[in-house]
């Protein structure tokens, strides 16, 4: 048991726990950040996906001790005030969910994908997202939502370049 310092959604936390505890358990049980979900506990379903220094990672198989001091982003930290992240907005607009239990993980993976590849082809989306399971089978809509978010982000990126 030791105090682990975590930077989550641009806030600092000190958590007293065994460094081997999973990040998902710390998020959900210690910090009550329940947007990240438990689905399988072995990194197979992606429901627990968070960003660690911008990269998608399965928090259920990530030891909390290994992410001390790194920038952690969860679904709760994606919107800026009332303004949704373009990927969140695209999931809403495409109604890319049924029970929506997989949605946080899907959105976090999609954010990581678009950070790496601003205009992914359908095949690239499918390859990148293949580790995220939607048991309700809304995959076609999720693909559309990611394409929509890519388009929505494109002008902003272009503007940034021109400046």
């Amino acid at each position, binding site marked *: 048991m030791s105090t682990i310092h975590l930077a989550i959604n641009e806030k600092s936390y000190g958590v007293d726990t065994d460094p081997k505890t999973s990040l998902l*358990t710390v998020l959900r049980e210690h910090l009550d950040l329940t*947007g990240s*979900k438990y689905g399988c506990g072995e990194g197979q379903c992606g429901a627990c996906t968070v960003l660690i220094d911008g990269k998608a990672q399965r928090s259920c198989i990530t030891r909390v001790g290994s992410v001390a001091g790194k920038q952690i982003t*969860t679904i709760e930290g994606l919107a800026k005030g009332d303004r949704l992240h373009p990927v969140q907005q695209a999931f809403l607009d495409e109604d890319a969910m049924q*029970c929506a*239990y997989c949605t946080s993980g899907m959105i976090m993976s999609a954010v990581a994908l678009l950070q790496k590849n601003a205009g992914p082809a359908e095949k690239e989306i499918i390859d990148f997202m293949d580790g995220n399971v*939607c048991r309700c*089978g809304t*995959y076609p809509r*999720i693909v559309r939502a990611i394409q929509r978010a890519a388009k929505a982000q494109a002008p902003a990126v272009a503007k940034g370049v021109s400046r």
Partner: protein
Amino acid sequence: MRTKTNAGIPLEPERYELRAAAPYRFDLDRRDFFKFLGAGVVVVSVLKPAIVAQESGGGRQRRGESLPQQIDAWLHLGENGKVTAYSGKVEVGQNIRTSLSQAVAEELRVPIDRIEMVMGDTQLTPFDMGTFGSRTTPTMNPQLRKAAAATREVLMGLAASQWKTDPQQLVASDGKIVDPKSNHSIQYAVLLKGQQITQSISADQPLTPATEWKVAGQPALKVDGRDFVTGKHRYPSDQKLPNMLYGKVLRQPSFNATLVSADTKTAEQMGATVVLDGNFVGVAAPSTQAAEAAIAAIHAEWKSEPQISNKELFDFLRKDATQGKDPSGDGDHYETGSVDQAMSSADHRLQQTYTVSYIAHVPLEPRAALANWDGDQLTVWTGTQRPFGVRGQLVEAFHLPEEKVRVLMPDTGSGYGGKHTGETAIEAARLARAAKRPVKVVWTREEEFSWAYFRPAGVIDVVSGVRGDGTITAWEFHNYNSGSAGIRTYYEVPNQRIVFHEVHSPLRQGSYRALAATANHFARESHMDELAHALKMDSLEFRLKNLKNERLRAVFEAAAKQFGWGKSKSPGQGFGMGGGYEKLGNIATFAEVNVDSKSGDVRVMRVVSGFECGAIVNPDNLRNQIEGSNVQGLGGALFEVIEFENGKILNGRLSQYRVPRFSDLPALETVLLDRKDIPSVGAGECPMIGLAPAIANAIFDATGVRLRALPLVPNGLKAS
């Protein structure tokens, strides 16, 4: 066994679902409504038309009179303009919170965002048997629409008496009553100031016809979608109370094992609350980790009997049904004409056996419950499709009167028929009673795989007789164990014998999306293809020759057209179809597969679904449900199978049990037939049933290999 609902629609004779408790006798005084809800108007929807006639005969009820029993929904429009609809149905991803809101918005003429749906709370909502069997749209939706329409009429009556005018000339629109002649206009909320009106809907309450719908019938986004994309929504597994402990249960090493002894000393020394009660061994501790550690510290001895494995399953199912049981005794038996005679005089006879394996629901959110005792009053938040059923289980488990137990169902991470029971509710409640603190139990994925229940496995024997011209003359169909949903054929056959055989299942089994309709349609629609092939007839032509049902013909024809049935194919490519009738919806599914002759890999490339479920309520959500049915259906069709041996599940993890992923996705096309002249029915299940036979038939078309077992290709075509 058949029961009738108020809509006169027969409830599917599905033994796995008929575990309903006695209907709740609702006994709330009308004054309680207003104490609780505030002034306004309450319109109740009553199940029995006879009671409706009685109660609504005199118009408004007198003050203090208790409301009719057998209420199935009610609607409150407050003097603050807020609309709240109460239904015992629950949201598990089928989006009924949205479609029911649409129904209310349509009839009440208010924006959809003004409506709050209170669902699946045994204290606040009327009794409901459960959310399954695609019942919400055909039953709850019209009841709530009637309640909303009746509310609108009450408002018109109030406005008419205020303006001393004829209510017939008034119009309701956007939360106001308007008199087009005088240009008077008044907000609902203003009309209701200080009012306390209760009313029951009448059986013949007129509704807005589907052709005039403005809100219903239109695409509507998930009403609380924002809470889901921000992670704000609290699922059952996210619930939390102050001082809450985390519970864990010691699982038996194999099914049906009995506890011989348990040493719990170490676990107790670790500070955990330990409960040893009959076969139940559980702990509660301040964290999941501490609870897991305490469970691991318990040394227990169990006794168990040898049990069969999935390798012997199908022989067992057939043998068990015929030994010591009248094969036609317990199950459904339907017989018409003279099957034996017709069979012997047929030009061609075909006999084949089809099998389906046990599969798991794998709801992404495992079972979860949070239980809290306040004296002898128990409150449980849990994910279930039957909150009232779970209340009944808690009443039974803890010997409590019904009014001492409240079950609430926060919108849950899916069910697919897999969450009809209250295991975690009972476990959490037992631990909470011992700990004298709230306890939450969330199953691990492994627990969910082993200790929930499965879609029943089954063996289906089909014998058929046809004339040389393609007319089916005899049909004999025996289903062992998988179930009787969809067992009857919709093809015109004068001589039929259809029998469901009950078997003592070696694994715990229960409801699953579309129930046995998937198995029965797989057998029937595969067999139809085999007959067409034997007769050298086109599969579609052969089906249509034996099919009179116009609605089913229409979906077959529409989907065939969209698919381009009859087009030429390239090597490795195959086309197939399957379809049918289930839960009052009609589906025809056409599939294109590609089989890699070297690797044996089977890929479903394209699926076209023709679907008709009466008047469409929400076309966008309907497409979502159909796509979802096809994606989920791919798993059971191609590769999902539970492997078991001697009372243990061998592949009970997500790394061992394959579910459909992005990369399995075929191109999905949907043709919707909107029959505005036919009442709307549900669509969560029916669209799934045509897929497995369509794929099996397409694989045959591609390779000449006929596969008669689901899943079709768990290890690719070569290995199967």
